[in-house]
């Protein structure tokens, strides 16, 4: 909980520093969950997110946590919600969003200088996307009212080392810190393939101009970070002074130390294999490949390294490295035993990740693979939590988990279904039957074109 606040540099002598620079959180969370609303959700079709389905199942929420799941639970005296004919799942987790930085409406100002990526160098490892994200982006509200309870905001994929991600709850707030999930592992974005090489190939920019150049750039940077990390290791062992702070090097050193989870934007199988080889060479783990359109060609490698693939159901063809995308990517990975999640990369797709999962499953049926709903739901819940390192806190409906729960009007895999009730941390974040819970961003206020 709020680890960073305890680790402020000033609390320790400059020599023999125990806490490395990368372990600090200079932008600590000030999040407060919505007011707790203990509830017994009664008699729904419960998909627990981890592979179990309970028809006519109950979920008891008390004190912000899930207390019990099963049939015929006794009501200890809390509000009861009749879920007959409705479905209950963990809240949807979107592991790839640019909400807050790709803020709609876009204008020429965004075209000239966007907050999605810092573009001064292919290595902007010192950036933290939470210092840019605008909490008044209406995309947060659209996500919430469609059942999303956790969002990872990633920096863009133009730089090779793109900076820190942030994990937020899509609640109305004035600052991102008020949305930031406390105690979540730090995440970091890297990119390979067409985006960084195209950036480097532009005459005005520094950076490699080819796939091989991008991979070499990564290795050189990690070699350099290895040296830097050794200085920190000596200092933390009490055999030397702490090295001078260097925000770019320490982010990479944190990756090498296993303290920062890496999410790498890659499309092709060979790009992902090259990045996995770097991870092996330098002794760290890749938490996820983002987009991973060719992951279905190499599921064993992902399974063996414990790397998740965050995929679309239906984005394809818009660039050369996306030509071999297949809608059945997720089902093929699931069948091969790899960790796979849906992801949006867009405020539009971010409103229907469960329907995207259904679309992927539908494509798998064309080639004789059937995925039942209790398995499909993993792609937007427990697997996504695993990708973020939050698998013990959210993404599963089980005792002890944070009560991020969605009560759906029907199957979450149907285009007609709506999120009736969205709970975050055991509080009501959105209740479709109560218009006063409809989030309205500051941007919408007083704009006549947006009012009926």
């Amino acid at each position, binding site marked *: 909980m709020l680890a960073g606040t305890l680790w402020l540099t000033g609390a320790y002598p400059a020599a023999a520093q125990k806490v490395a620079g990368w372990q600090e959180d200079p932008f600590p969370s000030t999040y407060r969950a919505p007011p707790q609303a203990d509830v017994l959700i009664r008699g729904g079709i419960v998909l627990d997110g981890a592979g179990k389905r309970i028809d006519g199942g109950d979920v008891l929420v008390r004190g912000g946590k899930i207390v019990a799941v099963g049939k015929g639970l006794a009501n200890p005296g809390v509000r009861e919600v009749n879920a007959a004919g409705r479905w209950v799942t963990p809240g949807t987790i979107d592991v790839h969003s640019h909400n807050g930085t790709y803020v*709609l*409406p*876009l*204008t*020429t100002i965004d075209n000239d200088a966007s907050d999605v990526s810092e573009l001064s160098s292919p290595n902007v490892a010192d950036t933290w996307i939470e210092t840019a994200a605008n909490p008044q982006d*209406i*995309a947060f509200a*659209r996500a919430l009212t469609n059942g999303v309870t956790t969002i990872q905001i990633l920096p863009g994929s133009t730089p090779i080392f793109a900076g820190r991600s942030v994990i937020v709850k899509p609640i109305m707030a004035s600052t991102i810190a008020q949305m930031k999930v406390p105690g979540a592992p730090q995440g970091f974005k890297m990119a390979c393939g067409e985006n960084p090489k195209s950036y480097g190939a532009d005459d005005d920019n520094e950076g490699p101009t080819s796939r091989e150049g991008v991979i070499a750039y990564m290795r050189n940077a990690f070699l350099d970070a290895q040296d830097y990390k050794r200085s920190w290791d000596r200092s933390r062992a009490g055999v030397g002074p702490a090295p001078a702070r260097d925000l770019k090097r320490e982010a990479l050193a944190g990756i090498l130390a296993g303290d920062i989870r890496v999410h790498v934007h890659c499309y092709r199988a060979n790009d992902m294999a090259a990045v996995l080889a770097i991870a092996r060479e330098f002794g760290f783990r890749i938490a996820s490949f983002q987009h991973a359109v060719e992951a*279905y*060609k190499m*599921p*064993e490698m992902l399974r063996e390294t414990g790397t998740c693939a965050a995929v679309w*159901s*239906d*984005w*394809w*063809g*818009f*660039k*050369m490295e996306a*030509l*071999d*995308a*297949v*809608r*059945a990517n997720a089902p*093929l990975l699931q*069948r*091969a035993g790899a960790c796979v999640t849906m992801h949006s990369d*867009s*405020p*539009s797709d971010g*409103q*229907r990740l469960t*329907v*995207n999962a*259904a*679309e992927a*499953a*539908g*494509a*798998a*049926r*064309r*080639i*004789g*693979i*059937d995925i039942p709903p209790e398995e499909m739901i993993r792609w937007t819940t427990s697997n996504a939590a695993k990708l973020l390192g939050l698998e013990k806190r959210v993404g599963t409906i089980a005792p002890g988990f944070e009560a991020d729960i969605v009560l759906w009007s029907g199957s979450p*895999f*149907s*285009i*007609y*279904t*709506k999120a009736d009730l969205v709970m975050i941390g055991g509080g009501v974040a959105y209740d479709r039957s109560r218009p006063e819970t409809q989030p309205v961003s500051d941007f919408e206020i007083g*704009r006549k*074109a*947006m009012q009926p």
Partner: protein
Amino acid sequence: MKALAFLIALGAAAPASAQNLAVIHAEAWTLAGPEPVHDATILVGDGRIVSIVPRGGVPAGATVIDARGKPVTAGLVNAATQLGLVEVSSAADTVDQASRDSAGGPFDLSMALNGNSTLVDLARADGVTRAVIYPNPSRAGPLSGEVATARLREGADIVDRANVAVFASIGGGEWDSIGSRGRQWQTLRKMLSEARKQPDAPQNSRRRGKDRSEGSPRGPQSEEPIRAVAAGRIPLAIATHRETDIRQAIALARELGIKVIILGGAEAWRAANALAAAKIPVILDPQNNLPGTFDQLGARRDNAAILFKAGVPTAFGLVGGPIHMSYNAGMALRGGAGIAVANGLPYADALRAITVNPLAIWGVGGGGLAPGGDGDLVVWDGDPLEPSANALAVIVEGKQVSTQTRQDLLAQRYAKVRP
């Protein structure tokens, strides 16, 4: 899965030149009423629908497709896409949506349509049998190209009709060389007024409705398309979103007596009654509930429901923006229609918005699942508006076409490698 295998086997057995085809045990969405015809036998002959009869008989020699009680709809029609013009959107040498020659008048995109595109295979497999293809806006002037319709038969030639309409765009940031939308409207108005003053083209040179298979090569571009618009023979499709621009378009149509179609129309719901009174149709993206630009602040998901209720002829296209509208011209269209239903549009109206309405709005006609109608129909394995559903059989011009895509083949290839 069994049903799919069965149908694929059937398709393989059917002679390519089959004249007669029967779909039996169909839940036939004729749209004659709000409910389908159950256990229907649909007979197709000589490329057209002959009859739709509950438990009807099957003539000897007809190729039979057993729908097993599943839904059958008319072939879907995407009312606005760039299918056939796009292969890899970020690779400029693989796309044909835009002309950089601003002096030559609206360009004829029908000559660029490519039926061998992998995007076309996927759209067909998702149940699209026709599509209306529009060009990119020109940054230099009001008019950029002509609109064409495609028929997704197998083979390279998917052109249905060229010169269906002329395309213009109005809005913030459009037409870099002109600036303010005040000047944009003035320029458009002036062009149309001048075109009206010119002597009308002789009747026999009108290209409206000319099928390219008739073999008449298109000559160099002239002023003719804009004259056809000015004379009210073909519509002017105006891509625009903001309420004020939609009201300007209504005024333009009234003053010049021309036919106008609104393309986009994120704020069309704000002018629903005026559009209905002027009989100006709207082609919209039912997914759109985000203010992508300041022109689209009013984007909302009950746009379609409001327009239908007001009596505005409405169809769906442009669905999912640049990422989806051509790459998933079928899937996004179906899911978009489903979203419209989830936001208040009656189901039968949603089907109309992706079958008969697009063809009526663009002045082509046809497309319904009715006796005498085009022989374009789709057998589904579930509700076609659910993205999880698959088309089991797609029939274009009376012939069953392949629903196998490059994606299927890739998925199959890598599904086989491992246990």
